[in-house]
Protein backbone atom coordinates (compact mmCIF):
# COMPACT_ATOMS: atom_id res chain seq x y z
CA UNK A 1 0.00 0.00 0.00
CA UNK A 2 1.57 3.26 -1.03
CA UNK A 3 2.22 5.75 1.65
CA UNK A 4 -0.51 8.31 1.22
CA UNK A 5 1.69 10.84 2.83
CA UNK A 6 3.42 11.28 -0.42
CA UNK A 7 0.37 13.09 -1.64
CA UNK A 8 1.64 16.06 0.21
CA UNK A 9 4.60 17.08 -1.73
CA UNK A 10 7.03 19.10 0.19
CA UNK A 11 9.82 17.63 -1.78
CA UNK A 12 11.40 20.94 -2.53
CA UNK A 13 11.97 21.69 1.09
CA UNK A 14 13.34 18.25 1.68
CA UNK A 15 15.89 18.85 -1.00
CA UNK A 16 17.01 22.07 0.51
CA UNK A 17 17.16 20.64 3.95
CA UNK A 18 18.61 17.31 3.12
CA UNK A 19 22.01 18.66 2.38
CA UNK A 20 22.51 19.97 5.84
CA UNK A 21 22.31 17.74 8.85
CA UNK A 22 19.56 15.51 7.57
CA UNK A 23 18.46 14.32 10.98
CA UNK A 24 17.89 17.75 12.33
CA UNK A 25 16.51 18.46 8.93
CA UNK A 26 13.82 15.88 9.33
CA UNK A 27 12.63 17.56 12.46
CA UNK A 28 12.83 20.91 10.78
CA UNK A 29 11.04 19.47 7.87
CA UNK A 30 8.25 18.44 10.09
CA UNK A 31 7.80 21.99 11.12
CA UNK A 32 7.66 22.70 7.43
CA UNK A 33 5.05 20.07 6.82
CA UNK A 34 2.91 21.33 9.63
CA UNK A 35 2.82 24.78 8.36
CA UNK A 36 2.30 23.92 4.71
CA UNK A 37 -0.95 22.12 5.19
CA UNK A 38 -4.35 23.39 4.44
CA UNK A 39 -6.43 24.19 7.39
CA UNK A 40 -9.34 21.94 8.07
CA UNK A 41 -12.26 24.22 8.59
CA UNK A 42 -14.45 21.42 9.72
CA UNK A 43 -12.29 20.67 12.67
CA UNK A 44 -14.56 20.41 15.64
CA UNK A 45 -11.90 21.62 17.98
CA UNK A 46 -11.96 25.04 16.46
CA UNK A 47 -15.36 25.82 17.64
CA UNK A 48 -14.86 25.00 21.30
CA UNK A 49 -15.04 27.82 23.78
CA UNK A 50 -11.99 28.46 25.91
CA UNK A 51 -13.33 26.63 28.89
CA UNK A 52 -12.85 26.87 32.61
CA UNK A 53 -9.33 25.52 32.65
CA UNK A 54 -8.16 28.18 30.26
CA UNK A 55 -9.38 30.97 32.46
CA UNK A 56 -8.00 29.30 35.54
CA UNK A 57 -4.63 29.08 33.88
CA UNK A 58 -4.78 32.69 32.77
CA UNK A 59 -5.68 33.85 36.24
CA UNK A 60 -2.88 31.86 37.80
CA UNK A 61 -0.33 33.30 35.42
CA UNK A 62 -1.62 36.77 36.09
CA UNK A 63 -1.43 36.23 39.84
CA UNK A 64 2.11 34.97 39.65
CA UNK A 65 3.29 37.83 37.47
CA UNK A 66 1.53 40.52 39.42
CA UNK A 67 2.68 39.15 42.73
CA UNK A 68 6.23 38.96 41.49
CA UNK A 69 6.22 42.46 40.08
CA UNK A 70 4.51 44.11 43.00
CA UNK A 71 6.01 41.97 45.73
CA UNK A 72 7.39 44.98 47.52
CA UNK A 73 3.96 46.50 47.84
CA UNK A 74 2.29 43.41 49.19
CA UNK A 75 1.89 42.97 52.94
CA UNK A 76 4.54 40.30 53.10
CA UNK A 77 7.10 39.57 55.74
CA UNK A 78 10.75 39.98 54.93
CA UNK A 79 11.65 36.93 52.90
CA UNK A 80 15.18 36.82 54.26
CA UNK A 81 14.48 37.47 57.90
CA UNK A 82 15.40 34.44 59.99
CA UNK A 83 13.36 33.92 63.10
CA UNK A 84 15.24 31.48 65.25
CA UNK A 85 12.31 30.75 67.47
CA UNK A 86 10.12 29.71 64.58
CA UNK A 87 12.18 27.10 62.78
CA UNK A 88 10.54 24.68 60.37
CA UNK A 89 7.02 25.40 61.41
CA UNK A 90 4.04 24.29 59.43
CA UNK A 91 1.42 26.67 58.11
CA UNK A 92 -0.12 28.83 60.80
CA UNK A 93 -1.82 32.16 61.18
CA UNK A 94 1.54 33.83 61.67
CA UNK A 95 3.04 32.20 58.61
CA UNK A 96 0.48 31.19 56.05
CA UNK A 97 2.74 28.73 54.33
CA UNK A 98 4.94 27.97 57.30
CA UNK A 99 8.62 28.65 57.84
CA UNK A 100 11.76 27.02 56.56
CA UNK A 101 14.77 25.58 58.38
CA UNK A 102 16.05 29.05 59.21
CA UNK A 103 12.70 30.40 60.31
CA UNK A 104 11.99 32.45 57.21
CA UNK A 105 8.43 33.00 56.03
CA UNK A 106 7.72 30.70 53.12
CA UNK A 107 4.97 32.76 51.55
CA UNK A 108 7.25 35.76 51.24
CA UNK A 109 10.05 33.63 49.91
CA UNK A 110 7.73 32.06 47.41
CA UNK A 111 6.55 35.36 46.01
CA UNK A 112 9.96 36.99 45.93
CA UNK A 113 11.30 33.78 44.53
CA UNK A 114 8.84 34.03 41.68
CA UNK A 115 10.63 37.18 40.66
CA UNK A 116 13.96 35.47 40.22
CA UNK A 117 12.51 32.47 38.47
CA UNK A 118 10.42 34.52 36.09
CA UNK A 119 13.28 36.84 35.28
CA UNK A 120 15.65 33.97 34.67
CA UNK A 121 13.05 32.13 32.62
CA UNK A 122 11.67 34.90 30.48
CA UNK A 123 14.71 37.08 30.07
CA UNK A 124 16.83 34.03 29.50
CA UNK A 125 14.60 32.90 26.72
CA UNK A 126 14.45 36.49 25.57
CA UNK A 127 18.18 36.44 25.04
CA UNK A 128 17.86 33.19 23.16
CA UNK A 129 15.15 34.64 21.00
CA UNK A 130 16.88 37.86 20.21
CA UNK A 131 20.19 36.34 19.35
CA UNK A 132 19.34 32.83 18.27
CA UNK A 133 15.95 33.67 16.89
CA UNK A 134 17.13 36.53 14.76
CA UNK A 135 20.04 34.51 13.52
CA UNK A 136 17.76 31.63 12.71
CA UNK A 137 15.26 33.84 10.96
CA UNK A 138 17.84 35.35 8.70
CA UNK A 139 19.88 32.24 8.27
CA UNK A 140 16.89 30.13 7.31
CA UNK A 141 15.89 32.58 4.67
CA UNK A 142 19.27 33.41 3.22
CA UNK A 143 20.86 30.03 3.39
CA UNK A 144 24.28 29.68 1.91
CA UNK A 145 27.61 29.74 3.68
CA UNK A 146 26.33 31.79 6.57
CA UNK A 147 23.74 29.19 7.25
CA UNK A 148 26.16 26.30 7.17
CA UNK A 149 28.52 28.11 9.50
CA UNK A 150 25.83 29.09 12.00
CA UNK A 151 24.40 25.63 11.90
CA UNK A 152 27.74 24.08 12.64
CA UNK A 153 28.24 26.59 15.41
CA UNK A 154 24.98 25.71 17.10
CA UNK A 155 25.87 22.07 16.80
CA UNK A 156 29.15 22.69 18.54
CA UNK A 157 27.54 24.51 21.42
CA UNK A 158 25.09 21.68 21.88
CA UNK A 159 27.86 19.08 21.88
CA UNK A 160 29.95 20.79 24.56
CA UNK A 161 29.37 19.44 28.07
CA UNK A 162 27.20 22.14 29.51
CA UNK A 163 28.05 21.58 33.13
CA UNK A 164 31.72 22.29 32.56
CA UNK A 165 30.87 25.54 30.85
CA UNK A 166 28.52 26.65 33.60
CA UNK A 167 30.97 25.86 36.39
CA UNK A 168 33.74 27.66 34.56
CA UNK A 169 31.67 30.73 33.76
CA UNK A 170 30.23 31.07 37.24
CA UNK A 171 33.71 30.65 38.69
CA UNK A 172 35.05 33.46 36.52
CA UNK A 173 32.13 35.69 36.75
CA UNK A 174 30.52 35.11 40.09
CA UNK A 175 26.97 34.39 41.08
CA UNK A 176 24.36 37.02 40.40
CA UNK A 177 20.93 37.13 38.87
CA UNK A 178 22.20 38.91 35.80
CA UNK A 179 25.01 36.48 35.21
CA UNK A 180 22.85 33.42 35.67
CA UNK A 181 20.22 34.82 33.34
CA UNK A 182 22.78 35.52 30.70
CA UNK A 183 24.41 32.12 31.02
CA UNK A 184 21.12 30.28 30.72
CA UNK A 185 20.03 32.65 27.98
CA UNK A 186 23.10 31.90 25.98
CA UNK A 187 22.48 28.22 26.47
CA UNK A 188 19.10 28.54 24.77
CA UNK A 189 20.53 30.34 21.75
CA UNK A 190 21.34 27.21 19.74
CA UNK A 191 17.92 25.77 20.46
CA UNK A 192 16.09 28.91 19.38
CA UNK A 193 18.31 29.14 16.37
CA UNK A 194 17.45 25.66 15.20
CA UNK A 195 13.74 25.90 15.59
CA UNK A 196 13.25 29.34 14.13
CA UNK A 197 15.64 28.63 11.32
CA UNK A 198 13.60 25.62 10.36
CA UNK A 199 10.44 27.61 10.36
CA UNK A 200 11.97 30.47 8.45
CA UNK A 201 13.38 28.06 5.94
CA UNK A 202 10.02 26.54 5.26
CA UNK A 203 8.40 29.85 4.55
CA UNK A 204 11.29 31.00 2.45
CA UNK A 205 10.21 28.64 -0.29
CA UNK A 206 6.59 29.47 -0.26
CA UNK A 207 4.97 31.02 -3.25
CA UNK A 208 4.18 34.30 -1.68
CA UNK A 209 7.78 34.84 -0.78
CA UNK A 210 8.96 33.95 -4.21
CA UNK A 211 6.40 36.31 -5.58
CA UNK A 212 7.56 39.12 -3.34
CA UNK A 213 11.09 38.56 -4.45
CA UNK A 214 10.15 38.64 -8.08
CA UNK A 215 8.40 41.91 -7.49
CA UNK A 216 11.68 43.31 -6.25
CA UNK A 217 11.14 43.43 -2.50
CA UNK A 218 14.33 43.74 -0.51
CA UNK A 219 15.48 40.92 1.69
CA UNK A 220 14.80 42.96 4.78
CA UNK A 221 11.27 43.62 3.75
CA UNK A 222 10.65 39.99 2.94
CA UNK A 223 12.03 38.79 6.22
CA UNK A 224 10.10 41.31 8.23
CA UNK A 225 6.85 41.34 6.36
CA UNK A 226 6.47 37.88 4.98
CA UNK A 227 8.46 35.45 7.02
CA UNK A 228 8.54 36.84 10.50
CA UNK A 229 4.79 36.91 11.11
CA UNK A 230 4.48 33.30 10.06
CA UNK A 231 7.27 32.19 12.27
CA UNK A 232 5.62 33.55 15.39
CA UNK A 233 3.36 30.59 16.32
CA UNK A 234 6.11 28.00 16.45
CA UNK A 235 8.38 30.47 18.16
CA UNK A 236 5.88 31.18 20.87
CA UNK A 237 5.20 27.53 21.55
CA UNK A 238 8.81 26.54 21.69
CA UNK A 239 9.76 29.54 23.79
CA UNK A 240 7.20 28.69 26.40
CA UNK A 241 8.49 25.18 26.79
CA UNK A 242 12.00 26.55 27.05
CA UNK A 243 10.94 28.96 29.77
CA UNK A 244 9.70 25.96 31.67
CA UNK A 245 12.95 24.17 31.11
CA UNK A 246 15.08 27.06 32.29
CA UNK A 247 13.14 27.61 35.47
CA UNK A 248 13.68 23.96 36.34
CA UNK A 249 17.36 24.00 35.38
CA UNK A 250 17.90 26.93 37.71
CA UNK A 251 16.98 24.53 40.49
CA UNK A 252 19.71 22.13 39.51
CA UNK A 253 22.15 25.02 39.40
CA UNK A 254 21.10 25.90 42.94
CA UNK A 255 21.76 22.32 43.97
CA UNK A 256 25.29 22.69 42.64
CA UNK A 257 25.72 26.06 44.28
CA UNK A 258 25.90 27.79 40.94
CA UNK A 259 22.74 29.86 41.09
CA UNK A 260 21.99 33.27 42.54
CA UNK A 261 23.70 34.34 45.75
CA UNK A 262 22.26 33.18 49.00
CA UNK A 263 19.97 34.16 50.57
CA UNK A 264 18.07 35.34 47.47
CA UNK A 265 15.08 33.09 47.02
CA UNK A 266 14.17 31.57 43.70
CA UNK A 267 11.82 28.70 43.13
CA UNK A 268 14.76 26.57 42.15
CA UNK A 269 16.71 27.12 45.30
CA UNK A 270 13.61 26.97 47.45
CA UNK A 271 13.07 23.51 46.10
CA UNK A 272 16.71 22.76 46.71
CA UNK A 273 16.54 23.97 50.31
CA UNK A 274 13.38 22.01 50.81
CA UNK A 275 15.07 18.83 49.65
CA UNK A 276 18.42 19.24 51.39
CA UNK A 277 19.35 17.95 54.81
CA UNK A 278 16.59 15.38 54.78
CA UNK A 279 13.95 18.11 54.93
CA UNK A 280 11.84 16.06 52.54
CA UNK A 281 11.22 13.58 55.31
CA UNK A 282 10.88 15.98 58.18
CA UNK A 283 9.24 19.05 56.62
CA UNK A 284 8.05 18.19 53.13
CA UNK A 285 5.88 21.27 52.82
CA UNK A 286 8.98 23.45 52.40
CA UNK A 287 9.58 21.93 49.00
CA UNK A 288 5.94 21.55 48.21
CA UNK A 289 4.96 25.19 47.74
CA UNK A 290 7.58 26.15 45.17
CA UNK A 291 7.25 22.84 43.34
CA UNK A 292 3.51 23.21 43.06
CA UNK A 293 3.78 26.82 42.00
CA UNK A 294 6.26 25.91 39.34
CA UNK A 295 4.13 23.05 38.16
CA UNK A 296 1.01 25.18 37.97
CA UNK A 297 2.83 27.88 36.09
CA UNK A 298 4.26 25.50 33.50
CA UNK A 299 0.97 23.81 33.08
CA UNK A 300 -0.89 27.09 32.76
CA UNK A 301 1.46 28.49 30.18
CA UNK A 302 1.22 25.46 28.02
CA UNK A 303 -2.49 25.16 28.38
CA UNK A 304 -2.95 28.72 27.23
CA UNK A 305 -0.64 28.07 24.33
CA UNK A 306 -2.62 25.01 23.36
CA UNK A 307 -5.98 26.68 23.55
CA UNK A 308 -4.88 29.78 21.69
CA UNK A 309 -3.57 27.67 18.89
CA UNK A 310 -6.76 25.71 18.61
CA UNK A 311 -8.92 28.76 18.78
CA UNK A 312 -7.15 30.76 16.17
CA UNK A 313 -6.82 28.04 13.61
CA UNK A 314 -3.15 27.62 14.18
CA UNK A 315 -2.17 24.06 13.62
CA UNK A 316 -0.68 22.30 16.64
CA UNK A 317 2.94 23.01 16.08
CA UNK A 318 5.89 20.83 16.64
CA UNK A 319 5.73 21.20 20.38
Amino acid at each position, binding site marked *: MPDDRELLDTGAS*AQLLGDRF*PGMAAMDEHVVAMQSEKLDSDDVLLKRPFGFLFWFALVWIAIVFLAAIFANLLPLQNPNFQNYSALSQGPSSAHLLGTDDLGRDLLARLIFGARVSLIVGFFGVGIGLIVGGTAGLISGYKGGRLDVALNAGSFIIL*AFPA*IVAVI*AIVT*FWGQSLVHITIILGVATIPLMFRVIRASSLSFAQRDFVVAAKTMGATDTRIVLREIFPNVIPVTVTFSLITVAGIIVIEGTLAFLGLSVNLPTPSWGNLINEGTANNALSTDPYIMLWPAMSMFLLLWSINLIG*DRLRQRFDIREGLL
Partner: protein
Amino acid sequence: MSKYLVRRVLQLIVVSFVISVLAFLLVHLLPGDPSTIILGPNNTAANRATLLEQLGLNDPLWQQYLTWLGAVFHGNLGTSYLNHESVTHILATGAPVDLELIIISQTIAFSVAVPLALLVSRRPNRPLDNVATTSTFGMLALPPFVVAPILVAIFAVGLGWFPATGYVPFTQNPATNIHDMILPSVAITAGSIAVYFRLLRSDLISTLQQDFITMARSKGLSGRRIMWRHAFRPSSFSLLAAAGINIGALIAGTFVVELLFAIPGIGYSLVLAVNQRDYLVVQGIALVVAIAYVTIQFIIDFIFTIVDPRVVRE
Protein backbone atom coordinates in the same frame (compact mmCIF):
# COMPACT_ATOMS: atom_id res chain seq x y z
CA MET B 1 26.55 7.58 -0.10
CA SER B 2 30.26 7.68 0.38
CA LYS B 3 30.22 11.41 -0.16
CA TYR B 4 27.66 11.65 2.60
CA LEU B 5 29.82 9.59 4.89
CA VAL B 6 32.83 11.68 4.14
CA ARG B 7 30.95 14.82 4.97
CA ARG B 8 29.75 13.39 8.26
CA VAL B 9 33.23 12.23 9.23
CA LEU B 10 34.63 15.64 8.39
CA GLN B 11 31.94 17.17 10.52
CA LEU B 12 32.89 14.84 13.36
CA ILE B 13 36.51 15.87 13.12
CA VAL B 14 35.82 19.58 12.97
CA VAL B 15 33.37 19.58 15.84
CA SER B 16 35.61 17.41 18.01
CA PHE B 17 38.58 19.60 17.33
CA VAL B 18 36.79 22.81 18.14
CA ILE B 19 35.36 21.37 21.31
CA SER B 20 38.73 20.08 22.42
CA VAL B 21 40.16 23.55 22.03
CA LEU B 22 37.26 25.10 23.91
CA ALA B 23 37.51 22.63 26.76
CA PHE B 24 41.25 23.16 26.97
CA LEU B 25 40.96 26.91 27.09
CA LEU B 26 38.08 26.95 29.50
CA VAL B 27 39.71 24.76 32.07
CA HIS B 28 43.15 26.36 31.80
CA LEU B 29 41.76 29.84 32.17
CA LEU B 30 40.09 28.95 35.44
CA PRO B 31 41.89 30.55 38.37
CA GLY B 32 44.22 28.26 40.24
CA ASP B 33 45.96 25.11 39.18
CA PRO B 34 46.31 21.53 40.40
CA SER B 35 49.19 22.41 42.71
CA THR B 36 46.93 23.67 45.47
CA ILE B 37 45.14 20.38 45.75
CA ILE B 38 48.13 18.16 45.19
CA LEU B 39 50.60 19.86 47.50
CA GLY B 40 48.28 20.53 50.38
CA PRO B 41 50.19 21.72 53.42
CA ASN B 42 53.42 21.37 51.48
CA ASN B 43 52.46 24.28 49.31
CA THR B 44 55.45 26.56 49.12
CA ALA B 45 56.44 28.72 46.20
CA ALA B 46 59.37 26.44 45.46
CA ASN B 47 57.36 23.24 45.59
CA ARG B 48 54.67 24.68 43.43
CA ALA B 49 57.15 25.77 40.81
CA THR B 50 58.76 22.35 40.76
CA LEU B 51 55.44 20.57 40.55
CA LEU B 52 54.17 22.72 37.71
CA GLU B 53 57.39 22.12 35.86
CA GLN B 54 57.06 18.37 36.35
CA LEU B 55 53.51 18.39 35.09
CA GLY B 56 54.45 20.42 32.07
CA LEU B 57 52.19 23.27 33.09
CA ASN B 58 54.78 25.99 32.71
CA ASP B 59 54.86 25.69 28.95
CA PRO B 60 52.89 28.18 26.88
CA LEU B 61 49.28 27.18 26.40
CA TRP B 62 49.51 26.46 22.71
CA GLN B 63 52.40 24.12 23.34
CA GLN B 64 50.56 22.29 26.06
CA TYR B 65 47.60 21.87 23.77
CA LEU B 66 49.69 20.50 20.92
CA THR B 67 51.51 18.14 23.24
CA TRP B 68 48.18 16.86 24.44
CA LEU B 69 46.80 16.58 20.93
CA GLY B 70 49.85 14.67 19.83
CA ALA B 71 49.44 12.26 22.69
CA VAL B 72 45.78 11.80 21.82
CA PHE B 73 46.67 10.74 18.32
CA HIS B 74 48.86 8.09 19.86
CA GLY B 75 45.93 6.90 21.90
CA ASN B 76 47.25 8.40 25.12
CA LEU B 77 44.75 10.62 26.86
CA GLY B 78 46.99 11.15 29.86
CA THR B 79 46.43 10.49 33.53
CA SER B 80 44.85 12.27 36.43
CA TYR B 81 47.20 14.51 38.38
CA LEU B 82 45.47 13.46 41.57
CA ASN B 83 45.05 9.72 41.61
CA HIS B 84 47.11 8.84 38.54
CA GLU B 85 44.33 6.89 36.98
CA SER B 86 44.57 6.91 33.21
CA VAL B 87 41.90 8.95 31.51
CA THR B 88 41.23 6.06 29.21
CA HIS B 89 40.50 3.89 32.22
CA ILE B 90 38.23 6.52 33.72
CA LEU B 91 36.28 6.58 30.48
CA ALA B 92 36.33 2.83 30.05
CA THR B 93 34.83 2.23 33.47
CA GLY B 94 32.58 5.27 33.60
CA ALA B 95 31.12 5.31 30.13
CA PRO B 96 29.28 1.98 30.39
CA VAL B 97 27.68 3.23 33.57
CA ASP B 98 26.30 6.33 31.93
CA LEU B 99 25.42 4.45 28.79
CA GLU B 100 23.35 2.09 30.83
CA LEU B 101 21.71 4.94 32.71
CA ILE B 102 20.76 6.55 29.45
CA ILE B 103 19.54 3.36 27.82
CA ILE B 104 17.38 2.35 30.74
CA SER B 105 16.02 5.82 31.28
CA GLN B 106 15.21 6.40 27.64
CA THR B 107 13.62 2.97 27.42
CA ILE B 108 11.40 3.85 30.33
CA ALA B 109 10.69 7.25 28.84
CA PHE B 110 9.67 5.89 25.49
CA SER B 111 7.71 3.04 27.00
CA VAL B 112 5.64 5.50 28.93
CA ALA B 113 5.46 8.45 26.56
CA VAL B 114 4.67 6.65 23.33
CA PRO B 115 1.70 4.54 24.41
CA LEU B 116 0.37 7.43 26.43
CA ALA B 117 0.58 9.79 23.50
CA LEU B 118 -0.99 7.27 21.16
CA LEU B 119 -3.76 6.84 23.65
CA VAL B 120 -4.66 10.46 24.17
CA SER B 121 -4.04 11.96 20.77
CA ARG B 122 -7.23 10.62 19.32
CA ARG B 123 -9.26 12.50 21.86
CA PRO B 124 -7.42 15.64 22.77
CA ASN B 125 -8.53 17.65 25.77
CA ARG B 126 -10.69 14.89 27.12
CA PRO B 127 -10.19 13.84 30.75
CA LEU B 128 -7.56 11.22 29.98
CA ASP B 129 -5.54 13.69 28.01
CA ASN B 130 -5.81 16.25 30.77
CA VAL B 131 -4.65 13.80 33.37
CA ALA B 132 -1.76 12.67 31.21
CA THR B 133 -0.72 16.18 30.34
CA THR B 134 -0.95 17.30 33.93
CA SER B 135 1.08 14.44 35.31
CA THR B 136 3.78 14.80 32.72
CA PHE B 137 4.07 18.46 33.59
CA GLY B 138 4.30 17.46 37.19
CA MET B 139 7.27 15.31 36.28
CA LEU B 140 8.85 18.12 34.31
CA ALA B 141 8.68 20.39 37.32
CA LEU B 142 10.63 17.97 39.49
CA PRO B 143 14.34 17.97 38.76
CA PRO B 144 16.39 14.82 39.45
CA PHE B 145 17.79 16.04 42.75
CA VAL B 146 14.24 16.13 44.09
CA VAL B 147 12.99 12.94 42.52
CA ALA B 148 15.98 10.93 43.72
CA PRO B 149 15.51 11.38 47.47
CA ILE B 150 11.79 10.79 47.11
CA LEU B 151 12.35 7.54 45.23
CA VAL B 152 14.93 6.41 47.77
CA ALA B 153 12.69 7.25 50.71
CA ILE B 154 9.78 5.30 49.27
CA PHE B 155 11.32 2.41 47.39
CA ALA B 156 14.62 1.84 49.14
CA VAL B 157 14.29 2.77 52.77
CA GLY B 158 10.54 2.37 52.90
CA LEU B 159 9.77 -0.70 50.85
CA GLY B 160 13.26 -2.13 50.57
CA TRP B 161 12.80 -3.03 46.92
CA PHE B 162 15.94 -1.29 45.71
CA PRO B 163 19.29 -0.25 47.18
CA ALA B 164 19.80 3.36 48.12
CA THR B 165 23.20 3.69 46.47
CA GLY B 166 25.79 1.62 44.73
CA TYR B 167 26.68 0.02 41.44
CA VAL B 168 27.42 -3.53 40.42
CA PRO B 169 29.12 -3.94 37.05
CA PHE B 170 27.12 -5.69 34.38
CA THR B 171 29.87 -8.18 33.78
CA GLN B 172 29.81 -9.13 37.41
CA ASN B 173 26.11 -9.71 37.81
CA PRO B 174 23.72 -8.56 35.07
CA ALA B 175 20.55 -8.99 37.06
CA THR B 176 21.75 -7.03 40.07
CA ASN B 177 23.27 -4.46 37.80
CA ILE B 178 20.01 -3.65 36.09
CA HIS B 179 18.02 -3.91 39.29
CA ASP B 180 20.26 -1.42 41.06
CA MET B 181 20.16 1.00 38.15
CA ILE B 182 16.42 1.37 38.13
CA LEU B 183 16.02 4.09 40.74
CA PRO B 184 18.83 6.24 39.30
CA SER B 185 17.43 5.81 35.80
CA VAL B 186 13.93 6.75 36.85
CA ALA B 187 15.31 9.82 38.56
CA ILE B 188 16.57 11.25 35.29
CA THR B 189 13.69 10.04 33.20
CA ALA B 190 11.02 12.42 34.38
CA GLY B 191 11.97 15.30 32.14
CA SER B 192 12.34 13.07 29.11
CA ILE B 193 8.90 11.55 29.52
CA ALA B 194 7.29 14.95 29.54
CA VAL B 195 9.13 16.21 26.49
CA TYR B 196 8.56 13.08 24.42
CA PHE B 197 4.94 12.86 25.39
CA ARG B 198 4.22 16.47 24.53
CA LEU B 199 6.05 16.24 21.23
CA LEU B 200 4.48 13.05 20.09
CA ARG B 201 1.01 14.00 21.23
CA SER B 202 1.16 17.28 19.43
CA ASP B 203 2.52 15.71 16.30
CA LEU B 204 -0.03 12.93 16.34
CA ILE B 205 -2.91 15.31 16.84
CA SER B 206 -2.01 17.31 13.79
CA THR B 207 -1.15 14.28 11.73
CA LEU B 208 -4.49 12.78 12.55
CA GLN B 209 -6.19 15.88 11.29
CA GLN B 210 -4.69 15.62 7.88
CA ASP B 211 -6.42 14.64 4.73
CA PHE B 212 -4.69 11.37 4.20
CA ILE B 213 -5.91 10.08 7.51
CA THR B 214 -9.46 10.95 6.60
CA MET B 215 -8.85 9.18 3.36
CA ALA B 216 -7.53 6.12 5.14
CA ARG B 217 -10.52 6.09 7.40
CA SER B 218 -12.87 6.41 4.50
CA LYS B 219 -11.13 3.45 2.98
CA GLY B 220 -12.24 1.49 5.97
CA LEU B 221 -8.93 1.01 7.72
CA SER B 222 -9.12 0.22 11.40
CA GLY B 223 -8.27 2.81 13.99
CA ARG B 224 -5.30 0.92 15.26
CA ARG B 225 -3.82 0.45 11.85
CA ILE B 226 -4.28 4.08 11.08
CA MET B 227 -2.65 5.03 14.30
CA TRP B 228 0.33 2.89 13.99
CA ARG B 229 1.16 2.73 10.36
CA HIS B 230 0.02 6.06 9.08
CA ALA B 231 0.09 8.40 12.01
CA PHE B 232 2.84 7.21 14.23
CA ARG B 233 5.52 6.62 11.69
CA PRO B 234 5.62 10.12 10.29
CA SER B 235 5.11 11.58 13.74
CA SER B 236 8.06 9.75 15.12
CA PHE B 237 10.61 11.92 13.39
CA SER B 238 10.44 14.81 15.74
CA LEU B 239 10.53 12.34 18.56
CA LEU B 240 13.70 10.82 17.26
CA ALA B 241 15.27 14.21 16.70
CA ALA B 242 14.32 15.33 20.18
CA ALA B 243 15.71 12.14 21.58
CA GLY B 244 18.96 12.98 19.87
CA ILE B 245 19.19 16.36 21.53
CA ASN B 246 17.98 15.01 24.83
CA ILE B 247 20.42 12.16 24.93
CA GLY B 248 23.18 14.57 24.08
CA ALA B 249 22.20 16.64 27.05
CA LEU B 250 22.16 13.59 29.25
CA ILE B 251 25.66 12.57 28.38
CA ALA B 252 27.78 14.01 31.18
CA GLY B 253 24.63 15.63 32.49
CA THR B 254 24.10 12.68 34.75
CA PHE B 255 26.27 14.25 37.42
CA VAL B 256 23.53 14.81 39.94
CA VAL B 257 22.31 11.24 39.82
CA GLU B 258 25.85 9.88 39.97
CA LEU B 259 26.56 11.97 43.03
CA LEU B 260 23.42 11.02 44.88
CA PHE B 261 23.48 7.32 44.07
CA ALA B 262 27.27 7.00 44.39
CA ILE B 263 27.57 5.65 40.86
CA PRO B 264 31.03 5.88 39.28
CA GLY B 265 30.10 7.53 36.02
CA ILE B 266 31.97 10.05 33.92
CA GLY B 267 29.65 12.93 34.83
CA TYR B 268 30.90 12.87 38.38
CA SER B 269 34.50 12.37 37.27
CA LEU B 270 34.18 15.32 34.93
CA VAL B 271 32.84 17.74 37.53
CA LEU B 272 35.35 16.57 40.11
CA ALA B 273 38.12 17.07 37.58
CA VAL B 274 37.00 20.60 36.75
CA ASN B 275 36.90 21.49 40.41
CA GLN B 276 40.31 19.98 41.07
CA ARG B 277 41.83 21.44 37.92
CA ASP B 278 42.65 17.96 36.69
CA TYR B 279 43.18 19.32 33.20
CA LEU B 280 43.89 16.14 31.31
CA VAL B 281 40.84 14.41 32.69
CA VAL B 282 38.59 17.32 31.71
CA GLN B 283 40.02 17.53 28.24
CA GLY B 284 39.87 13.82 27.67
CA ILE B 285 36.31 13.45 28.85
CA ALA B 286 35.08 16.54 26.98
CA LEU B 287 36.63 15.26 23.79
CA VAL B 288 35.13 11.80 24.07
CA VAL B 289 31.73 13.16 25.09
CA ALA B 290 31.70 15.43 22.06
CA ILE B 291 32.62 12.57 19.76
CA ALA B 292 29.90 10.47 21.32
CA TYR B 293 27.36 13.24 20.83
CA VAL B 294 28.20 13.74 17.18
CA THR B 295 28.17 10.00 16.58
CA ILE B 296 24.76 9.66 18.16
CA GLN B 297 23.45 12.46 15.97
CA PHE B 298 24.95 10.70 13.01
CA ILE B 299 23.19 7.47 13.90
CA ILE B 300 19.88 9.22 14.39
CA ASP B 301 20.23 11.03 11.12
CA PHE B 302 20.99 7.76 9.46
CA ILE B 303 17.86 6.26 10.92
CA PHE B 304 15.98 9.19 9.48
CA THR B 305 17.28 8.55 6.03
CA ILE B 306 16.06 5.02 6.26
CA VAL B 307 12.73 5.81 7.79
CA ASP B 308 11.78 8.78 5.69
CA PRO B 309 12.43 8.30 2.00
CA ARG B 310 11.87 11.95 1.31
CA VAL B 311 14.93 13.00 3.16
CA VAL B 312 17.51 13.04 0.49
CA ARG B 313 20.98 11.92 1.20
CA GLU B 314 23.57 13.58 -0.91
